[in-house]
């Protein structure tokens, strides 16, 4: 069930430089949301900026009807969102898109998040733990203060390891270094990834090399969010002899399997 509701802002917390955690009261959305889905938010009641902004669902509290989002201010829409305060209302559509495929219980799962890309993976991690999977979250960031989770004040109830480009926290290097080490070591039954395109591509290469199935949450500019306008397509493997096919991130994604994606 998809809804478009005026959601009350329960809490707006700054959790890092330009990073915010937003709690919304939106029971109609929280009750149906699954990991990997997103919401589509009207950041301000103005015609400029005109469009809504997509944000992954970072968590839910179904009992309390709450929805958690984790976002980075990168432009006008997210800046306007960050200026909204407790008690104000936001237009929120959701849950949208196809979420992650959940593995059988007992499987060993690695989550790979680049920067704010961890947002949906935390929700996923919680569900996987509940379903008795063995979960390890790998988080990459430019530096310690840019780490959205896995730091003082915001940890997650499952294994996690950190990589930073400048070595200010955890492994000095890329999060995919950590992934490679794990794949070469203990291995994994399934990998889920979300983050910058370069990191996703690197992850996909490793998964092919180690022959581990994976799913990727992608981003693309959107208009409608519901599959009607065909603006959010990404290139995917073609069926029936076609070299490729454009698929809509908003409804056929945002989650795609490794073998569906084309990385040119």
């Amino acid at each position, binding site marked *: 069930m998809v809804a478009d509701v005026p959601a009350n802002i329960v809490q707006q917390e700054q959790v890092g430089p330009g990073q915010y955690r937003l709690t919304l009261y939106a029971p109609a959305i929280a009750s149906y949301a699954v990991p990997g889905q997103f919401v589509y938010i009207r950041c301000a009641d103005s015609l400029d900026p005109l*469009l809504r902004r997509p944000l992954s669902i970072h968590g839910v509290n179904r009992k309390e009807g709450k929805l958690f989002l984790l976002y980075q201010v990168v432009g006008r829409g997210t800046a306007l969102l960050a200026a909204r305060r407790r008690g104000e209302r936001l237009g929120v559509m959701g849950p949208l898109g196809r979420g992650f495929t959940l593995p059988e219980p007992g499987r060993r799962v690695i989550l790979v998040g680049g920067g704010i890309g961890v947002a949906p993976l935390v929700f996923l991690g919680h569900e996987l733990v509940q379903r008795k999977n063995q979960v390890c979250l790998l988080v990459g960031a430019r530096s310690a203060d840019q780490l959205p989770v896995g730091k003082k004040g915001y940890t997650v109830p499952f294994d996690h390891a950190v990589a930073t480009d400048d070595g200010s926290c955890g492994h000095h290097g890329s999060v995919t270094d950590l992934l490679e080490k794990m794949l070469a070591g203990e291995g994994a039954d399934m990998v889920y990834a979300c983050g910058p395109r370069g990191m996703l591509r690197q992850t996909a290469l490793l998964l092919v090399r180690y022959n581990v199935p994976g799913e990727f949450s992608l981003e693309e500019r959107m208009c409608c969010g*519901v599959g009607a306008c065909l603006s959010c397509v990404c290139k995917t493997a073609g069926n029936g002899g076609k070299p490729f096919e454009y698929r809509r991130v908003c409804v056929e994604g945002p989650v795609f399997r490794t073998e569906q994606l084309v990385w040119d």
Partner: protein
Amino acid sequence: MAKPSLAVNVAGIRMKNPVTTASGTFGFGSEYAPFVDLNRLGAIVVKGTTLLPRQGNPPPRIVETPAGILNAIGLQNPGVDHFIEVALPYLRQFDLPVIVNIAGDSVEDYAALAARLDEVPGVAGLEVNISCPNVKKGGLAFGADPDSAAAVVRAVKGATRLPVVVKLSPNVTSIVRLAEAVVEAGADALSMINTLLGMAIDIRRRRPVLANVMGGLSGPAIRPVAVRAVWQVYQALKVPIVGMGGIVTAEDALEFIMAGATAVAVGTANFINPRATMDIIDGIERFLVEEGVPDIQELIGAAHM
């Protein structure tokens, strides 16, 4: 006051209210079904359909601009057969006139599409898109030149008994001349406006934002241009007009109706508010009640003194 009458008739297409959807912004209807009661729409205009399936343009296909968006979808669609076999049966469940937007690369394409749809039950009319700025082969040329536009319309009219609505491009020196040419060629109604040709540049990458370089500008930004186009054509010709371009509220819709539109189409606004069409229908009804107007038809062209 008694409930005002909202019904209008666009060249034989009977609509229970003047609100329809702008092609390409509302998919094939099912996408918006969680938000919109399709039975309440005056009509639906579906995504542009071509003879064969099309891949469309590479992404990025859209970019936001002040109070508008540029799009370069490039007519991605599953082709007319898929439309008839999959999308149309879904829509036939509803009490809803279905207008099929057709596009082609040649006069023959348009004629073949019209012929193919002519026999299909559940199609209420055709909207001939001769004005898509995102298709390089011909699309724009048809729309900009009165003679080739007329040729397309004559071919379509020769191939179908359905009402033919011709969608005009605003990217012309005189939209009135274009309108005259297609009406002369047999158009039963006109719809306007399609998008304005525009582009945006990513100054960090020093390249156009859209993979297609140029795109079509839609949304509230273009509303004044669209209202003007409807006004001019209404003044020059006696032909039903479906007005569109930046309609977000009932007030915006009423601007088009008073400028001369018999019906209006809601496009980009669906992206901001998925219930925009419903809110606009409600708002028009409220306006009629407030102003004591028993029938919407009284307001068509009412701003022409």
